[in-house]
């Protein structure tokens, strides 16, 4: 056990979890190594690439920049916690072919899911802004956004059809 470690509790994906760790341990390491939630990925490790995005109290945040002492009384949601989200599932299935190595996919998906939770009919500009904190070294983001646009348009048409 590292020196100075202490028990830290927070809400993760709707359940309270307690971890014993140093107060400076990164949320990313807590998720990946201690709790084995590996869909939050480590990219640049300095908050620039968005591979480790999670929702913290409803806000998108880079897990590599959050120390453990910030966690008490917060509600963290990872991609695993959104697996029942229908919008996310539809996005994930349709976007899969657009990614190349797929390492950034978790961060992009969670960013798009967060957008769709707030805005059901985002514009192209909204989509671009949503993933502005993500970077894809393979260069797939333009294609991913095109695919996301198609999914959102289909969903909108379906809902309009149902209403009429």
């Amino acid at each position, binding site marked *: 056990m*590292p020196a100075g470690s202490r028990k830290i509790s927070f809400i993760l994906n709707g359940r309270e979890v307690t971890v014993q760790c*140093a107060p400076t*341990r990164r949320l990313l*390491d807590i998720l990946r*190594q201690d709790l*084995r939630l*590996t*869909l939050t*990925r*480590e*990219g*640049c*490790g*300095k908050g*620039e*690439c968005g*591979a480790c995005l999670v929702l913290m109290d409803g806000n998108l945040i880079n897990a590599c920049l959050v120390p453990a002492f910030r966690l008490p009384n917060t509600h963290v949601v990872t991609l695993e916690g959104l697996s029942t989200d229908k919008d996310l599932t539809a996005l994930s299935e349709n976007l899969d*072919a*657009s*990614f*190349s*190595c*797929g*390492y*950034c996919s978790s961060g992009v998906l969670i960013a798009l899911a967060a957008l769709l939770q707030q805005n059901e009919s985002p514009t192209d500009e909204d989509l*671009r802004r949503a*993933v*502005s904190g993500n*970077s*894809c*070294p*393979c*260069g*797939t*983001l*333009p*294609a991913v*956004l*095109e*695919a996301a646009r198609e999914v959102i348009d289909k969903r909108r048409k379906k809902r309009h059809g149902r209403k009429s």
Partner: protein
Amino acid sequence: MAAKMTDPRAQELFIDDLTGADYAYGIAVRAPVARGSIQKIELPELPPGFWAVRAEDIPGDPLLRSSGSDMPFLTGSQVCYRGEPVLLLAGPDRETLISLAEAVQIRCRESEAVTRLEEVNAGGLKAELHLHEGDPEKAFQDSYQIVEGSYTLGPQNPLGRAPQGAVAVPENRTLTVWAAVLDPFFMRDQIASLLALSQRRVRVRVPRVRQSREEQALTAVLAAGHAALLANAGGRPVKLFYEPRGEACWYPEGSRCRIRQSTALDREGKILGVRMEIVLDIGAYRTCTRGLLRDALSAVCGIYRCANIEVVGKLAQTSTHPAGLSGSTTRAAVAFATELQQARLAEISQLDPYVWKQEQLQPRAAALPGRRGGPAAAALERAVTASDFCRKYAAYAAMNTRRRTYLAPPHPLRGVGLSLCVQNEAGEQSFSLPASPRTCSVKVCLEADKRLHIYSSIVETGQRRDTLFTAAAAGFSEERNPVLEPVDTLTVPDSGYSSLEATLEISRLIGKCCQTLEKRRSGAALPLETRRSLRFAPEKVPRRQRDTRMPRTAGAWAATVVEVEVDAETLHPSCRRIVMAVEAGAAGYARAQLKAGILRALGRATWEGRKEPCPFTDSELAPEVSVEFVQMPGREQHCRAFDALPDLGVAAAFVSAVSQATGLYIDQIPLTAEVIQRCLLAAEK
């Protein structure tokens, strides 16, 4: 006893996602100097549960042996490049491990390092290859004009993020290694040799990863070897990672090379002969072969007509990270030089590059036998039309000639460039097609659950394998979804390096296996098993037949037009639009992949070897990219690899466009504002 591994097929796509309760972490400690001899290694006191492995602890062959390679897994005395692995550490806690690694002192007697190709002397040349066709001597004697060019490719941005690593699990006198690699049997043999174990006692398993840097053969084998050494010494599972934030794993990719090209022209401007010298920087160790050099040289004339060719290829050793060279990166380097030379020839002939390229195309590229238009001509036509190339080229050329000074014109400098390329199809030279014979094998079982199970060592890349294998088994009655078994050297037959060609051959074999099972199944007890193997030699297929034999690979052609704008004050080049027309058969589904490849290629051409991703990978800054597919009659169904087309075509078109925008001869990538400034100063002198 090792903990049970989570099935990585469920969600874990990357080695870093594999987790186990009793895993120790492993890390490589690297050399602090570029060249020298190690005097002393001072280790801090290791806490209980931590252990170290040095070069002298290696029980078997310390060298990574592939054709031509002599790279040690750990260096014992001589350091040949900065960041060379010297020592391995393992322990249960990752943070402690990193701080221990930082506390290791490696004392070296530093010697002079060779970091640039210009500094390499005769002793640093590891291989040389001379090839010629026709009578280049006479062609140059008879020539009216000789045009010379010198082209340089520097370290290019790797653009990768997936951390590299491997997991080694010792259990029941065998060692299981989880690694992302395209040739799992090669990795197994290397690890068995490293640990002095029999091949039966080493098992390599490949999780379902998509295309990523983890697959690079030598780096993957090195990481797997390090994990295996630590697991073997510690007797417990080790997850080794190359620290993603560390400098060592961010080495630049691409071919670092220098190319000199001379073209002999007659009075009418026709090409009589070509001379080319290519010096490839292989880094500190010989990690590539003469075959690779030969592969690069085969692309020497691109897709242009030339009867008299003389090429000299050299492999030069420097004190830099071993280059991750492959056939496609070296061909891309040669294609870059050839296309820029063609652009220069077009300018000298005072012709639009479109007209020049059309006139110089090989007969085969310009028109297929018995058909009106050829694939290259069709791609060229489509790209030029879609981008309005000719009008823009003329307009920018007029602007350029009217400009009085390079510096601070009142408007941004704009230019447009055009390039042509082909993948998987060599030129007309007789020394082309260098591939060696290989064997592909597959095992197909009809299990008790009445489902087909397919066993193959071909590693999935970009969903290509799954699609082709499932399609091949579609003829088998009652079969809907065959089970594609995970790649595991214990269960699958060896098919060598995973490639499209091997995937296609195995698809054919799966079809035959299904026919055999269909015949045997009536009244027979399940499970039923059948195996098929095929030894094939791509070079034995006459070039003329390559387009008609299916489903063998054939060439995919592309024409690329790049529009650029150079800031008149900062000289920063930015890309406004890219249009690529591709003739690759039924590849319509791949538009997204090609667009991503184009952005990556643009990044490599513009972003000097740095750790940060290039700005074009940001959705806000990416230029407009459009991909047009050209369908040729009779070639629609040909399944052809096209993934290297962006690397082959984008850089040359980009540099040509910047040359037109600035009015300077620019002959190198990565192309940055600093390079333009250097060229500007040289031109003003």
